[in-house]
């Protein structure tokens, strides 16, 4: 969670490099009303595939 300088916006990034990422931006200009103003939605991709020796038999 990071602040965008000189704005009242916070960026939240949840990023699992093996699976997916999701980013959202929040407006914190009103103390009692934090509002999500943007969501990228889930971005899927990346993988680690483990192949057991039996896979080759």
């Amino acid at each position, binding site marked *: 969670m*990071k*602040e*965008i*300088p*000189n*704005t*009242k*916006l916070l*960026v939240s*990034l*949840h*990023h*699992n*490099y093996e699976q997916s*990422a*999701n*980013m959202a*931006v929040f*407006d914190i200009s009103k103390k009692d009303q934090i*509002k999500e*103003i*943007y969501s*990228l939605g889930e*971005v*899927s*991709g*990346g*993988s*680690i*595939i*483990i*192949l*057991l*020796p039996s*896979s080759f038999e």
Partner: protein
Amino acid sequence: MSLGTGYGDITYNSRRGILGAAPLYGKISYHLFNVDSNASKTKDIVKLIRKSKWHSQYGKHQSYIDTSNLLYSLEGYITALDFNPTGEYVATIDSYNNCLISDVTTANYRFHVKLGRWGSSDWIVFFLLH
């Protein structure tokens, strides 16, 4: 200015009001957003401008066998990204130590170098960005 570090990096350039984040290895170098905190409509504050194309110069898919004779097939990932001060260029580095510079406006490739643990390559990148 880099706002975050690690596997999920965020970078913001206040001069151009652009934000880069959320790369998708093999497909998207980074998502480029325009940030206008003064926009009258909420939906116009943050807008996705582009899913910047992947560049072939990044590290390729790798496989290796560990001491247990397990074969790992590993895709890499972008570990960090940052804009230069003017917001004209973006530098990305992947898990194979490939540092790549591309043009923010056109998304075109400009330069890349494989960084080692030691050496002068870091300075090449520094001078290009500043």
